[in-house]
């Protein structure tokens, strides 16, 4: 600038530019459970800034992607009481995304040489070696988490977890009826080498899509967490998987678990069912059942409105009731003619309009 005027002007490019520092540091001081797959776990953190953070800035902690979303598991985050006293009431910790939380000084100038502590609740431990997964601490110049104003960034180690292997149970499935398409009582007998946790979910995978179920299972009250047992669907990639869902109580290892539920049989064929037991979605037991065969020889005999008869595929069912008066107790007599197969189980479906007297 010559004689108060811009006289000459040029532009040059800076080869390097300001990078964030590695000053901020953090560690996980302890976790409530070191077992993989455990849920509802508290993680305890410690961090120290080691460099200036403006009062309007913030500290961010990012979990490795392997962790289940902090929103899904309903995690919460709070400053430990003594740290809260140090920073004052207005500073807070908050979970802002599925894998990220922020500590907002909210007008407080945090000490650069003071360790602060905070706790994150309800975390589900991944069931794997986490040595290659790192947590990240970052400090931001602005409160706005989305502005790229990183002052400092560094990573710290995940906790060392004890990996839980999935153990095999023995599973025996017995059916009351082995005819295709008919409702049958499924007796599920399972013995596991490890104890079952309270409120675990047993999933018995059905590789067909049953049309009916009573939605109630029976079993010892020391076994069933709820008598409710639903047929549900889940998707593995695009494959739809149907399963019977049963919730179990805490059961010691090697104890026979026997549950009966009503399921409509699938089509003719050989079946072998898979089952898993999970706690909060973490599978820790599984089993494969005995094989059983569903035959195609479903014999249907349709009755007429009053004593009529019609033929099924292989046999003819005849029936007659007496007397024929409306809404009157009546005796029904059924007869099978021309049986071409050996009848082992006879199931008569009675229309709901006929009630037991």
């Amino acid at each position, binding site marked *: *600038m*010559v*004689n108060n*005027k*811009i*006289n*000459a*002007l*040029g532009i*040059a*490019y*800076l*080869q*390097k*530019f*300001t*990078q*964030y*520092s590695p*000053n901020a540091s953090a560690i996980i001081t302890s976790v409530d459970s070191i077992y993989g797959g455990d849920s509802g776990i508290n993680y305890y953190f410690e961090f120290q800034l080691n*460099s*200036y953070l*403006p009062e309007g800035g913030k500290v961010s902690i990012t979990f490795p992607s392997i962790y289940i979303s902090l929103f899904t598991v309903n995690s919460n985050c709070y400053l430990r009481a003594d740290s809260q006293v140090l920073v004052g009431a207005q500073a807070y910790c908050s979970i802002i995304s599925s894998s990220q939380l922020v500590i907002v000084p909210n007008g407080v100038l945090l000490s650069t040489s003071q360790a602060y502590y905070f706790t994150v609740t309800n975390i589900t431990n991944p069931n794997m070696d986490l040595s290659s997964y790192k947590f990240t601490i970052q400090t*931001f*110049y602005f409160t706005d988490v989305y502005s*790229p*104003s*990183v*002052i*400092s960034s560094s990573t710290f180690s995940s906790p060392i977890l004890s990996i839980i292997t999935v153990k095999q149970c023995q599973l025996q499935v017995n059916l009351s009826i082995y005819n295709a398409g008919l409702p049958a009582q499924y007796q599920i007998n399972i013995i596991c080498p490890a104890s079952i946790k309270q409120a675990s979910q047993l999933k018995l995978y059905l590789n067909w899509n049953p049309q009916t179920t009573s939605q109630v299972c029976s079993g010892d009250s020391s076994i069933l967490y709820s008598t409710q047992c639903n047929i549900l669907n889940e998707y593995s990639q695009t494959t739809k998987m149907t399963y019977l869902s049963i919730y179990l109580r805490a059961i010691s290892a090697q104890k026979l678990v026997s549950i009966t539920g009503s399921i409509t049989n699938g089509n003719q064929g050989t079946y072998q069912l898979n089952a898993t037991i999970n706690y909060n979605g973490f599978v820790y037991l599984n089993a494969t059942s005995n094989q059983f065969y569903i035959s195609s020889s479903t014999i249907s005999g349709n009755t007429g409105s009053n004593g009529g008869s019609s033929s099924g595929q292989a046999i003819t069912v005849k029936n007659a009731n007496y007397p024929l008066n409306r809404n009157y107790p009546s005796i029904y007599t059924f007869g099978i003619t021309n049986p071409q197969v050996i009848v082992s189980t006879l199931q008569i479906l009675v229309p709901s309009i006929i009630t037991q007297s």
Partner: protein
Amino acid sequence: MGSITCQIYPSVSTVTYPTIIVTGYDSISAGTTVRIRFANLKSLPVGITDDITLGVSLTYFYYGGVKGYIYEPVSFVVGPTTAAINPISISYSVSEVSTNVVGELSNYTLSGTIGNSFQTITTHDFFVVTFPPYVFEGRFNLNTQALCSRASGNVCSVFGLASQIYIQPSSSVTAAAFSFTINKLLNAAYKL
């Protein structure tokens, strides 16, 4: 020994004037020349003459609703401005010697040549280095330690919000080729 604060109050009508209030300075001995520089104020339109009023008042005390002036405002004329000139070109490069990490100090060397029609840069003129926005965001006062090699006493006039450094050469610059350093300049407050 704190940092000086300048607050700008824009004009809100034709009878109120935009005002800059400067606070936070140390006591000033009588007979001292004080220079306060403001960066990035827009200059007047071409051909216009106006006046600026400067006074010193007590900021926190009012006497009967009247602001208590220690020194009554005095006016001085600014302008007229003249038409803009087309600056001649400078080709130069910057070498950075530092780790370029937030919160650390960097050293810069600026070397280049001023193009044709070079005019002598006197001790009343300036080298002005404009950095990208937000480089001096934050703790401006820490940049008082910066050293500019051309200036007398190595004084760098760092304008934090304007991201500019004014360097007044200690002696006239008569050669088109130049090289000077800016040392101990605080890096940006965050990754840019």
